[in-house]
C-alpha cells in the first residue's frame, strides 16, 4: 500500500438502502405519535436546551428514521425534559417521551441489543 498523502473520502450522503431501520422501528413501536411529525420546528424553536446547545428534536427524530445514528445517544442527553416542546407541538406528538424513547433505543442499539427486541 502506498501513502499518497491523502485518503479517499467517505460519502456523507444518506444511503437509505444501507441505513439501519432498527432504531426507527423501535421508536415508532414505543411512541407511535412520532409518526405525526410534520417537521414544523415548533419544538426546536422553543427548546430550552436548543438555545444553548445544538440539540434539535425535529432533526434528531428524522435522523432516527433515516438511520443517521452517529452520536444520537449523546445528543438526546442534552434534553432537559422541561416539556415545553410538548405544549407547542401542533400535531400532539408526545415529544418528551419521544426523546426518552430515542435515548433508550440508541443505548440499546449501541450495545448491540436492539435487534433482539
Amino acid at each position, binding site marked *: *500500500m*502506498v501513502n*499518497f*498523502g*491523502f*485518503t*479517499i*473520502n*467517505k*460519502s456523507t450522503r444518506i444511503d437509505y438502502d444501507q441505513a439501519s431501520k432498527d432504531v426507527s422501528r423501535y421508536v415508532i413501536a414505543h411512541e407511535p405519535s412520532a409518526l405525526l411529525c410534520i417537521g414544523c420546528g415548533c419544538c426546536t424553536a422553543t427548546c430550552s436546551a436548543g438555545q444553548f446547545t445544538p440539540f434539535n428534536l425535529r432533526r434528531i427524530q428524522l435522523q432516527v428514521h433515516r438511520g443517521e445514528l452517529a452520536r444520537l445517544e449523546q445528543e438526546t442527553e442534552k434534553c432537559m425534559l422541561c416539556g415545553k416542546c410538548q405544549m407547542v407541538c401542533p400535531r400532539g406528538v408526545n415529544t418528551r417521551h419521544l426523546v426518552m424513547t430515542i435515548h433508550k433505543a440508541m443505548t440499546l442499539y449501541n450495545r448491540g441489543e436492539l435487534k433482539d427486541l
Partner: protein
Amino acid sequence: MKIEGKKRIWSEYQKEIPDDKYFYVRSCIRQSFFPASEVYFLKIMREVLHRDIYENKHHTTCSGIGYHSDVVPFETAMTVVARQFALMTEAGYENYAASCITSFGLYSEIIETWKKFPDVLQKVRDNLYKATGRTFEPPKHLAHASDIIYKVRNEIAARARYRLVNRYTGAPLRVVEHIGCHYAKMFPSKGVGGAEYPYVLTGMVEAWGGEVVDYPERRHCCGFGFRQYFIQANRGYSAANTRKKFESMEPFRPDMIITNCPGCPYFLDRWQYVIAETEGKTYGDNGYGIPVFTYEEVAGLVLGYDPWDLGLQVHQVSVEPLLDKIGIPYDPTRKYAGKDQKDLSHPESPSVLKV
C-alpha cells in the same frame, strides 16, 4: 430500458456540425496525458477522411484551467479567447474546433455572453486591439473535436479493420461512455443528444459495434474538479468521486470506458491505481482495471493503428486484455520503445492493480 425514449430525446438535441474546414486548437494537458490522441485526430481527419483541419502554432491556452481554478478572471479569459478567434479569422476560417472540453465549455460561455451582451463583446474587441492590434470575428460554428468524430463516425466505421466486439463470444463490447462536465451540462443544447443522455460518444460506440452501458452514476463528474485535484490534501475528495462511478458501473461489468475530456480519462485511469493501493479494490476482470480511452484512441484502434503508436502504453490500466478481446495484434516487446526506438523506461508495477 426503452431505447425509443432516448431516441426521442436525442432527436431534440441535434446540433449543426460543419463537415469540413476547421480551425483546430489543442488542449493544454492532453498531449502529456494521452500523447497521441490529438495527433491521430489530425491524421484521421486529414489523411484518412481528407478534411481541411488547420492548426496555428501561435495558439495558446484558452485560460479555462485558470478560470475554473479561480485565478483567471472572466474578462481576462475572454480577451485570451478573442486572440484565438483572431488567429482563426486571420487564417480565413469560420469553424472552430476545440480539443478540450473545458475550452469548449468556456468558448460556449463566452460566445453566449457576447450574444446577450454586445457591449461586452465590444469591450473585448477594444481590449484585444489595444493589446495586440488584432481584430476578430467569433466563430460561425463551434464544435468540440468529439462532435466532429461523431459526425464522421460512419465514415470511420466503413474503413474499420476492427469492431468493438468480443471475438470469443461475438457479443458487442460493453462500453461506458463518460462525457466531460463542461461539454453540455452548462449548455445542453450545445451537446449532441443534450446533457442528460448525451449521444456524442454513444453514437461512435454504436457505429463501431459496441453497446453502451447505462449505469446509475453516468452523469457524475469524474472527480477532477481542478481545485480538488491541484491541492494534495483535497485529492481524496477527487478520488472519492471516481470511486463512486466505479462502484456504480461495477455490476454491469463494462469492458472499457470511452471519454471526450482531457481530465476524465486521466483520472478514471489513474485513480484506479490509487483506489487499488488505498483500499485494495479493483474493478476489471481478474484483478485488472477497466481500461479507459479517449475517443481518438478508440477511433485509431478500430482503424487499425498500432496500439503503441496510439500512446496506449502510458495508460495506468493495461489495455492488453481488451486488445486481446477485440483481436487487435500488438508487440509486447515494443510497448516501451519510443518512436525513435529508444527505451521509454518501464514503470514500476503496482502492488494491487494487475498490469
